[in-house]
């Protein structure tokens, strides 16, 4: 992999980090699948996975309940962390998380509109809700970028305030849709779980489509990640070095919105994953976005699987939405980062 050639002295290899975190991810998926109201031992999980045809009771639990949810958590975590790396590079700011910027809120509102207006439209697991979620995230990011990202106005305050205002408005919109739904309507339950950041149990087809789009999105973003390193010198400097700044910005916003929409349609509003995971990996690997992006995706997946397992078992039998847990971990981390940056500035 080309990342090996990019390695800088005294910084660990990104490839090694990728392999290590992949192992953690696989282990976390297996453990998370075995944990729950009905305990399925690790050996049983493995046996079920290796012989999917055998219809056992644990097979039903694993394949229809546990595994889809665990994989949904993994994909949502990967999408949010990768988006965090991309948006932080674009805004040149480590606080640029898809939740903080309002992209998640835009995706949720778009998805909510679809659940309300076209509840039955769906092809191959890609419902109208996924498409409108993407549109909502993209529209939000264009607005937030226009308010806070352009060179003349790019300050932390502007970025946070724009994200806060837009995000609050969007979340209120989603809440309004939730109220309009009959409480017994499945749409209302979907919306409520989105607002709390509750990982759902998606159909396998949706998982497959989300996984394909996510891998493709991150692959397309890899050359962009290199351009983000140049953009760290500033837009004008990057332009002087031959980077097509407008095009890179558009592509980053589109791919980031796509990844955010995929994550939101799987788990709703889960905050700070896109902030925590890139931040800690940046401490270990350095700020090179090209090295960071794939590692953050795998790391984000492992992080959210573990966090969701904890959320589900912490106060069992009640399941805590993982969004609440990440808010409790991420909020203080966010404040710490904000304070440190102010001190430095």
């Amino acid at each position, binding site marked *: 992999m*080309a990342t090996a*050639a*990019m390695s*800088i*002295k*005294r910084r660990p290899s990104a490839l090694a980090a990728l392999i290590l975190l992949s192992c953690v991810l696989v282990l976390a998926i297996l453990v998370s699948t075995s944990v729950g109201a009905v305990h399925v031992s690790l050996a049983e999980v493995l046996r079920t996975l290796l012989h999917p045809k055998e219809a056992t009771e644990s097979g039903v639990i694993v394949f229809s309940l546990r595994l889809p949810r665990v994989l949904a958590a993994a994909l949502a975590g990967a999408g949010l962390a990768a988006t965090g790396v991309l948006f932080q590079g674009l805004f*040149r*700011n*480590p606080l640029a998380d898809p939740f903080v910027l309002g992209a998640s809120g835009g995706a949720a509102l778009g998805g909510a509109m679809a659940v309300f207006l076209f509840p039955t439209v769906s092809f191959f697991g890609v419902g109208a809700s996924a498409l409108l979620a993407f549109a909502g995230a993209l529209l939000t990011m264009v607005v937030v970028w226009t308010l806070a990202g352009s060179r003349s106005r790019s300050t932390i305050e502007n970025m946070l305030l724009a994200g806060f205002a837009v995000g609050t408005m969007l979340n209120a919109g989603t809440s309004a849709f939730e109220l309009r739904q009959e409480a017994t309507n499945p749409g209302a339950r979907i919306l409520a779980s989105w607002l709390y950041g509750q990982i759902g149990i998606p159909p396998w087809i949706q998982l497959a489509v989300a996984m394909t789009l996510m891998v493709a999105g991150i692959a397309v973003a*890899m*050359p962009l990640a*290199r*351009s983000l*390193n*140049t953009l*760290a*010198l*500033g837009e*004008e*400097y990057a*332009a*002087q*070095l*031959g*980077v*097509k700044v407008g095009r890179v910005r558009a592509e980053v916003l589109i791919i980031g919105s796509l990844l955010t929409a995929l994550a939101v349609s799987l788990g709703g509003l889960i905050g700070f994953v896109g902030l925590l995971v890139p931040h800690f990996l*940046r401490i270990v690997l*350095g*700020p*090179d976005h*090209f090295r960071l992006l794939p590692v953050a995706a795998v790391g984000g997946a492992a992080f959210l699987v573990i966090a969701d397992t904890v959320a589900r078992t912490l106060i069992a039998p009640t399941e805590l939405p993982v969004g609440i847990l990440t808010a409790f971990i991420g909020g203080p981390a966010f404040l710490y980062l904000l304070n440190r940056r102010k001190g430095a500035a």
Partner: protein
Amino acid sequence: MSAILEAQRIDFAYGSRTVFERMSFSVEPGSMTAVLGANGMGKTTLLNMVAGLLRPSNGRVLVDGRSVLDWPRRELSRFVALVPQHLEVPFSFQVEEIVSQGRVPYAGRFGGLSPEDRRQVEEAMRAVDVLRLRDRVYSELSGGEKQRVKIAIAVAQQPKLMLLDEPTQHLDIGRQVEIVRLLRSLNEQGITILAAIHDLAIVKENFRKSILLLDKACVMGTTVEVMRPELIEQAFAIPQSELPAFDDMAFTTPESSRLQRDCRRKRPRSKTSK
């Protein structure tokens, strides 16, 4: 000798504020030319225009005989390097990672660095004497060190023409001398230098040619010719009597009649060298 850089009757304005009006000048290859002028006269604008970041509303900027706007962007980035006045970098990027960005105009489709690119980055860091800083975090460097790293990025671009915006500003006298010595050595290696500089003493000592920006126009010639008290007085709005430490300068020169007094006037290239 044909000019490496030529501005032909360029107009430029920020909104309603006219900066240049039918301004012309030229820079010879291999020369070391200073851009002088009061704040707001357009020194940075001029450099940005040559680097292709701003376009004149009228007129042309020719680099190596070709209009800047006709150059493919990446090719221009290999020919002209601009060292901006300020460079602040977020995150803890190290010096080597920063200098590597100078190779972006040479990168392949997927942007990776070739062994040749790595060699050039190392050469650039050695030439500018920041090799020992390669693992240091850029944002933690001193002003003088940052200035050298910025120049190293430009050296890594392997340009024929290097533009520098106030490279000695905010540096102590020792670091200023070091930077100027560095520019001279780069110039001796064949890089044409065009630098906006405030310190007239530095210009007088080191730059043989100067372009003095006056209101919307310019005066160009050898530094000695350009630094005549009446021109300096006009350009910086300061009475001659209050000019510091210029007594030793040869202000009057028989050549001064040949000075290209107003760049707006279209004239054949004047022979300004002695």
